[in-house]
């Protein structure tokens, strides 16, 4: 038997060689792009389909193609129509009225009605739903639906930022029937430009055009999204034209795209910010002067240049272009080691101190590099940093408990500063336990900003807020980076926006 096996083994040896050559031959054939299907790739997949529950970047990007909110923000962060064609605040700012688009239809053909809007906005604040965006809609006192295309929100207090919050896919309108049936997260019935035909988590999504979409015809018949966990592999797949459009996170990979003649890199500054969060409830970060010394000792430009290859812009707390202050006006945005040392000795820490900084592995991809540059910069004023990189969920767990001395983070931005920061820098903020710093000035500035309807006055309020925040330095804001998409040059019509949305894929076409 043994000998038989051996002979078989040996006689089989010539064959695989030929087979191997044949197979590699098939490898050489690039997959022909179906003219009307966009082949897309990203490295991290969506985590779920319920638009009210998802907060992960990829989930939002996917769901924005499937669901629609009442309004959207465009590339310049202005509010534009979506399901609602028009909207109006009452004089006292406590009543917000929307007119819905009568053409708006769900993927199953049913019309989007005011009843769906009411049901959706009752579902989000319901604690049983577990919607993370709930906090943004607590000022809704009641909702009236005088007719199928009119919705009136009655607010308990003037709330200007609520309109921006409503532009998020976390405030998407879902069919009232699906809510009652409890099937929102499973069936993915929305009114957006694409419908989800197939989802194989961590592997791929297949989307097809929604022919009834109120926004008009889409440029492609469908989108196939593949999850390629390694971004180097995404770039390789783009080189061989298998992938036409991709989302990239790592600047080290993104910066290689322009070197390819057939590829184009789209980059747009985003609202999210890289930050070194200090924990002001822990010694010695309890001391204002210590925090300020850290701020003065860090060369933000150098962190950006090293960790992100200079791909980004140094920023203060406000990342919204129309509101942001020139960072050079902010406290210690020019590195000043002498001043830092002096502040340290005034605080009684002339000899420095030791602390641990936590970061999440690969989230963002630059985290470990940022930590190492900061570590070496802070060493110059005697602060000895210990770096602890953790798996994302372990990090999140520690972060939520406020269990860290310092943390490297990439925190999400919003189109409105109140929505963006009320969680951290108000007395009632849900994430006060993470921020661990609040003073009366910050709290009152936030409250003023929330109710002020005059844009110029609002801008002034937030400018003061930003200046104050940079000065008390609970966190060290570092820089904003770019959101990257890479595409074949024959893809036309994609408009990158600071929110990172891929909504304009609805108008993208493939040129022959």
């Amino acid at each position, binding site marked *: 038997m043994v000998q038989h096996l051996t002979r078989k083994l040996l006689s089989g040896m010539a064959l695989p060689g030929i087979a191997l050559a044949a197979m590699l031959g098939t*490898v050489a054939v690039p997959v022909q792009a179906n003219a009307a299907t966009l082949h897309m790739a990203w490295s991290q997949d969506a985590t779920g389909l319920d638009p009210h529950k998802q907060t992960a970047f990829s989930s939002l990007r996917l769901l924005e193609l499937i669901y629609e909110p009442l309004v959207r923000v465009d590339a310049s962060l202005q509010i534009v129509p979506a399901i609602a064609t028009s909207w109006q605040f009452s004089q006292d700012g406590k009543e917000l009225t929307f007119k819905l688009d009568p053409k708006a239809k769900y993927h199953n053909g049913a019309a989007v009605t005011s009843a769906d809007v009411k049901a959706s906005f009752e579902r989000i604040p319901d604690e049983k739903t577990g919607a993370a965006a709930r906090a943004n809609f607590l000022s809704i006192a009641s909702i009236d639906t005088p007719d199928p295309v009119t919705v009136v929100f009655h607010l308990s207090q003037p709330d200007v930022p609520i309109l921006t919050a409503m532009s998020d896919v976390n405030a998407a309108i879902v069919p009232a029937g699906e809510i009652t049936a409890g099937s929102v997260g499973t069936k993915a019935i929305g009114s957006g430009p694409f419908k989800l035909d197939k989802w194989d988590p961590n592997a791929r999504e297949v989307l097809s055009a929604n022919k009834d979409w109120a926004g008009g015809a889409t440029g492609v018949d469908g989108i196939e999204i*593949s999850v390629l966990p390694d971004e180097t592999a995404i770039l390789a797949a783009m080189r061989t034209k298998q992938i036409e459009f991709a989302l990239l996170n790592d600047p080290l990979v993104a910066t290689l795209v322009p070197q390819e003649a057939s590829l184009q890199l789209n980059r747009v500054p985003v609202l999210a910010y890289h930050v070194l969060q200090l924990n002001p409830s822990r010694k010695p970060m309890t001391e204002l002067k210590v925090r300020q010394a850290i701020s003065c000792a860090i060369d933000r430009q150098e962190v950006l240049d090293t960790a992100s290859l200079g791909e980004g812009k140094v920023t203060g707390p406000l990342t919204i272009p129309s509101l942001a202050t020139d960072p050079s006006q902010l406290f210690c945005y020019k590195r000043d080691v002498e001043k830092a040392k002096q502040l340290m000795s005034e605080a009684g820490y002339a000899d420095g101190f030791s602390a641990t900084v936590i970061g999440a592995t690969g989230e963002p991809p630059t985290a470990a590099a940022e930590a190492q540059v900061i570590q070496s910069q802070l060493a110059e004023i005697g602060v000895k940093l210990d770096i602890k990189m953790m798996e994302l969920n372990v990090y999140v767990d520690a972060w939520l408990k406020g269990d860290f001395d310092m943390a490297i983070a990439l925190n999400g931005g919003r189109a409105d500063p109140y929505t963006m920061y009320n969680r951290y820098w108000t007395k009632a903020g849900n994430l006060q336990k993470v921020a661990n710093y609040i003073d009366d000035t910050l709290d009152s500035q936030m409250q003023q900003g929330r109710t002020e309807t005059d844009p110029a006055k609002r801008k002034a309020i937030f400018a003061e807020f930003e200046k104050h925040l940079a000065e008390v330095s609970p966190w060290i804001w570092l820089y904003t980076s770019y959101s990257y998409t890479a595409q074949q040059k024959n893809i036309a019509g994609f408009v990158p926006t600071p929110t990172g949305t891929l909504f304009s894929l609805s108008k993208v076409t493939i040129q022959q």
Partner: protein
Amino acid sequence: MTYLLRRLAVFPLVLIGVSIVVFVAIRMVPGDAITAMLGTEAGLLTPAQREALSVYFGIDQPWFVQYGRWLAGLLHGNLGISSTYGKPVLEIILERFPLTLELALLSMLIALVVGVPAGVFAATHNEKFSGLGVRVAAMIGQSTPNFVLALLIIYTLSAGFGVLPAMGEFSPLWQDPLRNLGQLILPAITLGFAFAASVTRISRSAMLDVLSDDYVRTARSKGVSARGVIWRHALPNALIPVVTLSGIEFGYLLGGAVIVEQIYALPGLGRLVLDAILQRDYALVQGAVLFIAFNFMIVNLLVDLAYVALDPRIRLGEQ
């Protein structure tokens, strides 16, 4: 027969051990399905919201209650429902398994086809330069981390030759054999590289052992040609350790190849478990690890049986 039964009787014991270890370990890791879904936004949840989500994910009970429930389900052939896929765990695993099995088989094929002749060559050219060359090549093969090899292959092919296997959608063997093999051949080479190197090394040393045995010398002195001695007499006996090694290695490969699957974007078992761990999909982690452990034990049993079949000197049941 009794030996086989005794071996099989141990299976449930080991599986229960594995399930308890994985059950406790995965729950000791900080973070849960809620933080996996929401990230830092989970901090915006009120206690009531958190409670509602815990019930939704089935993690509101103490761990032993959860374990009891899970074990009860297991006895009914139910491995639970995955929180990320919203499907029965067993269904997901069985969807992923054919790829892993095929990849493991292909890698083993490559390893044996390359490794055994190379090993024989190295053994018969033991004191020569060419033999040393094969050995050094094998050692380099064994010492290259597979992620380095995978990245080099992808980079060379895509940047140098403009070709790459179809990434993204994976075609099962029965749907599109050609495309399927195209997708799996590079990962199989990546995995088979180190595997072939081990096979080369072990078959060389086994061959050397056998060649020095008395009966081979006898055969030789009786005038059997050198080639005849090697292929007919020595190799069959030298195959025993090769079978053992290949079997064990194959058993490992059936557990999925996390890093290679990650780079080549293959939906195999390794990535399934890794993603399930990262997303704290407890039911899926438990089910998949149990499935992998079970396969591993089966393969080990088969290796032992093959061992016995190949070497009549070993008697079943003897310890």
